[in-house]
């Protein structure tokens, strides 16, 4: 270990899934021909004026409530002034020192603030590489310009690139389940910059931070942060100081280039937006937003662990996908009392997901939630072996129906151990032993691996209907006594 600990904060921009833009009635879009969703407002034509999108405010309040933030009853918009062709008014309408939400927490990370602002237009550099350098000219597409954005800034509570990745995933599924954004990094509806510094392990002071930009996938985010921690650590170990700067991550070379240093830091000359009146979040708006919030992933995950006894990995996987969690809870509800435990039902969800496809919604498959828990109950009662039950599930996915009926129809019922009549499991085990005396002898000597061929024989003969554990037990017993 280097003796230094990383300190990471994230700055996330989320495009809201409203129907129209933040300050005008143009429709939101992605991938349409350029400049077909524009108007005087989002083009910054002379004489145009902004009007606040009420739905965007509702969504921002929902986000604040979901993150446990304080919702400001009164907040204002500010102009953030800078010249660039993707900014048609040469200022962005944003929020500065009176944002709509302050504070909050999600998982292990405290939220510093949440505010509303508008997105810029899209600059396209016409040339071979698509980058500014070497391009003949640049053109601007204003379809995106004015899209509502919520900016979420965390406190520097993250301590590793992996943790940042995991936390951003939690934020993403939370926002997704809130229904306020598609939060898709590929489409730009989720963007994340990182502020990274290091300090001696155990110190409470903050080191000089660098701002990392252009990490447009979860993988690049993790790699970029990791590269920066390494860079700063090497600097400090060489006795040099970290300079506050903005760095641009290049995924091709997995390296960081400086964009600007502190001396050139922009003075945005913030002042209150005179074309808008203060934003009042009334009790009605707040109550409606609260009403619209479903049980969110972090809470659901915690409930699954605490009340249902699921392991944290399983709880997380279910809670992070609402369709899975909803389906799972329906399956639990439909199981007759005492027939099956929540853990047992949960264990069948990955099996189902594997068969229907990982992006699919189980409630749209042919397997009813009740069928799944009934199948789990049959396994629990040893009415069918685990292996046979997997085949039943495959059949359920293909045809639907009732698991008990399928077991009956296919003759997949578990074979009991009763001896005597030739169909019993004991008879088959004896036949297995007789067919491979060498293996039997090794098992008697205590060679655990040698039991494999014997188990295989029995499973083939029973077409998988025998319970694997039961077979193993019987083989040992019969070998021992035989």
């Amino acid at each position: 270990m280097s003796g230094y600990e990383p300190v990471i904060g994230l700055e996330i921009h989320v495009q809201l899934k409203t129907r129209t833009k933040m300050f005008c009635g143009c429709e939101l879009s992605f991938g349409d021909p350029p400049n077909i969703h524009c108007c005087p407002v989002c083009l910054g034509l002379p004489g145009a004026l902004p009007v606040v999108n009420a739905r965007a405010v509702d969504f921002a309040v929902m986000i604040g409530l979901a993150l446990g933030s304080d919702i400001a009853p009164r907040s204002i918009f500010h102009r953030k002034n800078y010249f660039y062709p993707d900014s048609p008014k040469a200022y962005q309408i944003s929020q500065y020192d009176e944002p709509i939400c302050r504070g909050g927490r999600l998982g292990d990370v405290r939220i510093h603030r949440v505010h509303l602002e508008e997105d810029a237009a899209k600059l396209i550099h016409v040339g071979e590489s698509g980058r500014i350098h070497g391009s003949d000219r640049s053109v601007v597409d204003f379809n995106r310009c004015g899209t509502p954005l919520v900016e979420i800034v965390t406190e520097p509570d993250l301590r590793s690139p992996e943790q940042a990745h995991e936390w951003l995933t939690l934020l993403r599924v939370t926002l997704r389940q809130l229904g306020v954004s598609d939060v898709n990094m590929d489409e730009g509806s989720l963007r994340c910059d990182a502020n990274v510094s290091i300090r001696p392990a155990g110190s409470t002071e903050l080191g000089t931070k660098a701002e990392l930009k252009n990490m447009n996938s979860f993988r690049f985010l993790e790699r970029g942060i990791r590269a920066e921690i390494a860079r700063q650590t090497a600097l400090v170990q060489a006795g040099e100081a970290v300079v506050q700067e903005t760095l641009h991550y290049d995924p091709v070379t997995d390296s960081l280039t400086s964009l600007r240093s502190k001396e050139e830091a922009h003075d945005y000359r913030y002042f209150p937006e005179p074309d808008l009146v203060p934003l009042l979040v009334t009790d009605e708006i707040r109550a409606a937003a609260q009403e619209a919030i479903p049980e969110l992933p972090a809470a659901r995950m915690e409930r699954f662990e605490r009340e249902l006894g699921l392991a944290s990995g399983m709880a997380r996987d279910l809670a992070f996908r609402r369709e899975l969690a909803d389906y799972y809870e329906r399956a639990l509800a439909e199981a007759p009392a005492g027939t099956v435990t929540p853990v047992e039902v949960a264990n069948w969800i990955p099996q189902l997901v594997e068969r229907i496809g990982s992006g699919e919604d189980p409630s749209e498959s042919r397997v009813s939630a009740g069928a799944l828990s009934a199948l789990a109950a049959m396994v629990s009662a040893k009415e069918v072996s685990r292996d046979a039950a997997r085949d039943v599930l495959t059949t359920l996915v293909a045809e639907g129906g009732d698991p008990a009926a399928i077991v009956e129809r296919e003759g997949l019922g578990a074979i009991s151990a009763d001896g005597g009549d030739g169909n019993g499991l004991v008879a088959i085990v004896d036949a297995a032993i007789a067919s491979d005396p060498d293996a039997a002898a090794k098992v008697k000597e205590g060679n655990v691996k040698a039991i494999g061929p014997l188990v295989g024989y029995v499973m083939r003969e029973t077409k998988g209907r025998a319970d694997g554990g039961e077979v193993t037990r019987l083989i040992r017993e019969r070998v021992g006594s035989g």
Partner: protein
Amino acid sequence: MSELIELTAAEAAAKVRAREIDAAELFEAYRARAAADELNAFTWVATEAPPADPESPLAGVPLAVKDLFCTEGVPSQAGSKILEGYRPPYTATVVANATRAGATLLAKTNQDEFAMGSSNENSAFGPVLNPWDRGRVPGGSSGGSAAAVAAGLTPWAFGTDTGGSIRQPAALCGIVGIKPTYGACSRWGMIAFASSLDQAGPFTRNVTDGALLLSHMVGHDPRDSTSVAMPEPISAPTAEDLKGIRLGVPEELLGGGDNGMGIEAGVRENFEATLKLAESLGATVDTCHLPHAPHALSAYYLIAPAEASANLARYDGVRYGLRVGGDTDLNTMYSRTRAEGFGPEVKRRIMLGTYALSSGYYDAYYGTALKVRTKISEDFRTVFGEFDFVVTPTSPWTAFELGAKTADPLAMYLNDFCTVPMSLAGIPGISIPSGLSDGLPVGFQLAGPAFSESRMIDAAYALEQAIGFDTSAARA
């Protein structure tokens, strides 16, 4: 023809409705005069009469509109080279309101560039001449609208007032100008100078026409978040006297006995005479106090340029208007476009505004100016507890000679001394011609509480009738 020109707008509308005169003929009478204009009052004149509806409230009476109002398909340049030839794809709400009520668009009028000026000498399209004396300025920034109405080239016109740009040119041209309460008229489609101060308003020959036109301009517009509905409609004035009206004369604006505040002797004399006239109509006249008014000009010349520095940043050569150096790099294109497209006063104010907002200076300048503004609003609210209206000379002096004040920007800023406090407080003000001084018109200003337009117009009307100013001299 000349009988048509001598009709007030209200009279003309009534005659069109009564089918006594023809709207197309009326339009053509004005159009011909506008096309032959020698005052440089216009940046665009219609080439033919648009269809008119004689049944409508404004019955096809032609209207001239300041260059900075967006009029779809018609050049809207805000008096600037950076927007030369720009034709917007949409029309300003107040213009649409008036045309929906039956007004017809006659012309766009010349103005100080981006409404920055008090003499119309800052226009990229040349200065406007005062019809009372062509060697003198008409005032600004709405100099073109004021000169056109005074010279009978249009029956009435729209202007905008940010620090006095309707009231002051109205005074210098001997006509009526009204700045309504901030928010009464929508700013949608008004090329912005200072967002928290800009207001559209009418220039007319008399108060009755002013009330008529204003009533068809106001109204809440969902496209302007700062617009509000008038609590009561603007009614035609009828007052015959000023009985029970308490007029307050702010000591801080008028100074002591002598000319301490720089008000011209002839203007001061006329002002005193008008006050006596008001008393004879039954008004009481007393001194009132606006303790923070002496700081109004300083606060204004920080707030307005600050907002303007942001409002004018969009003129960058990328999407519309002038572009210079499009084949160079971005910063070169930006600097050359703006260097060539903006005039010196605009550049001066952009620099001032940028400085006032910059890091380390915000609190001392812009932040403090906002606080002073609040104080000024409070001063007016206090005064209106005891007085109905505040009265002042509209302008400290009559029309000055072209070039007389262009060497010193601060001297030019002093034109707004008596009008800026009302702009900062967002309250309405009206200027009516109250006489002549050395042959040049003098204006009298009344200002009332927010949304007091009807009462203020009524009081102005009573005074106007008693003054009996003859506006026809400038129409000859």
